């Protein structure tokens, strides 16, 4: 029938676009097994030579380690500060706290290159270029929006009467916070943490500017590698990063499944 015709065409086209979205990144997987010395699909047979090169390369290992701990520390900072901020804004619930919440999304909206210039100039003055603390702080601030947004979203789902009920049953402000509010926002906090972590883990532009000579995080080393010589080892690293992201993302999906929807 005509109707199924039209719907069928739209559906088929949509699936093609979805394929265009989901599949290309995975091209790096076969490329990482190429037997050629340039970027290409495996020609005659699959080879582990680039994986071996990656595993024996200290620089890549250092980068992974650096990326990992920077992401962990700045995520911790963003989660603590962001959660407190979200709860504070929620309870203060005034025009001003609403403005604070709006200001908190600035780092998501303003182009990163602008911030990179600014933070570089500040760190030059403070002599923080190429310092661990400098990078961690920059990633913490730019990771804040994710936490503030997700925690605010789960707070918005809390029925205000829940708190009133707890207070009415004799709980103090602190007890209410501990037993009623926080348990209800834990999924939001964890989601925010995952987003903040991925943000730092993938962040490139700020690190290029303030990383100095000491900090070559994984994205920065990949960036240099792509710009210098398109070595298939980069495909190995990219494959690893995709796997890692998939892992983190499935954790987030599992969390979301457990979170009660409003």
């Amino acid at each position, binding site marked *: 029938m005509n109707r199924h015709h039209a719907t069928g065409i739209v559906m088929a086209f949509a699936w093609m676009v979805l394929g265009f979205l989901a599949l290309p990144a995975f091209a*790096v997987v076969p490329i990482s097994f190429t037997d050629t010395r340039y970027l290409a699909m495996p020609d005659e047979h699959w080879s582990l030579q680039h994986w071996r090169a990656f595993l024996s390369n200290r620089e890549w290992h250092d980068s992974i380690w650096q990326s990992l701990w920077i992401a962990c520390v700045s995520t911790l900072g963003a989660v603590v500060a962001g959660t407190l901020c979200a709860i504070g804004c929620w309870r203060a619930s005034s025009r001003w706290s609403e403005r604070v919440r709006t200001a908190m999304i600035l780092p998501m*909206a303003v182009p*990163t290159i602008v911030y990179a210039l600014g933070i570089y100039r500040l760190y030059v003055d403070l002599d923080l270029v190429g310092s661990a603390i400098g990078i961690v702080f*920059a990633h913490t601030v730019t990771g*804040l929006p994710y936490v503030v947004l997700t925690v605010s979203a789960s707070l918005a789902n809390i029925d205000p009467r829940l708190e009133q009920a707890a207070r009415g049953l004799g709980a103090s402000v602190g007890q209410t916070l501990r037993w009623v509010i926080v348990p209800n926002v834990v999924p939001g906090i964890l989601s925010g943490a995952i987003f903040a972590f991925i943000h730092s883990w993938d962040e490139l532009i700020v690190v290029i500017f303030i990383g100095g000579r000491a900090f070559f995080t994984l994205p920065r080393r990949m960036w240099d590698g792509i710009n210098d010589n398109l070595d298939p080892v980069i495909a190995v690293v990219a494959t690893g990063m995709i796997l890692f992201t998939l892992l983190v*993302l499935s954790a987030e999906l599992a969390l979301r499944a457990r979170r009660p929807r409003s």
Partner: protein
Amino acid sequence: MPSQSDTPTGWRPRHGVYWLIIMPALAMLVLLYLVPLADVLVTSVTDPKPGLDNFLLLFTSTSVQKTLLTTLRIAALTTFVALLLGYVVAYAMRAANSSQQRLMLFCVLLPFWISVLVRSFAWIALLSSRGPVNAGLMAWGLIDEPLPLVRNETGVLIGMVHVMLPYAVLTLYANMRGIDVRLVAAARSLGASRFQAFRMVFLPLTRPGLIGAGTLVFILSLGFYVTPALLGGGKVLMIAEYVAVQINDTLRWGLGTMLATTLMLSVLAALWALSRVLDVKRLFGA
């Protein structure tokens, strides 16, 4: 009766404790985010000497103008293509059954979370002259010479659409989900054909979604650095990369911060305009 804390009168003594816990994040935002941005703004009108000389370059320098034009052209094209493809996907998602819907949503979210760097690299590998796309086209006999798909605007456009499409799909889908299906049914029962019902009822109702998604994609495209830099291979200079080049290679801070300021102010202005029409926080996933 609303509880006291719900009244928007704000600053009172008993709210002190809440402002105290807001403080750490707010202090970081001000000192480590807003101050650096302000510094960029100030530098743009003081370096090398006070005045608006840097901003005059917007009108006099041909290389600046060329960069701006390239940026606007690519951002506009990206927006157009992303809206077009995103609309079809969002529409199909709405029509699909729930298990299909979940798979579709997964396909949209997956690239969202894979690093832009990794994805740009994958596109370089796919589109290069010895890459699988060209190899495939030649094997099928569709072309004899490899097509130049990368290190030019085509490559940048493909990469940018790939990055921006999820934003477009998610914004449009959120909008479409809010549309009552019975409206289309009503239009049909009143004599409208499928296409008429779509054009006269459904499409107008998705206008806020199109405006929201379009603005979001456009402003995000304006500030893009990684994808155009890698897929353009230095040949397609968009504003963000141009700024980086000014700072890193020629140390022209005045020009760099001026362009950064222009970029930031345009983005914020567009967001502000958009916030009059719809809830901007929504767009960023709130």
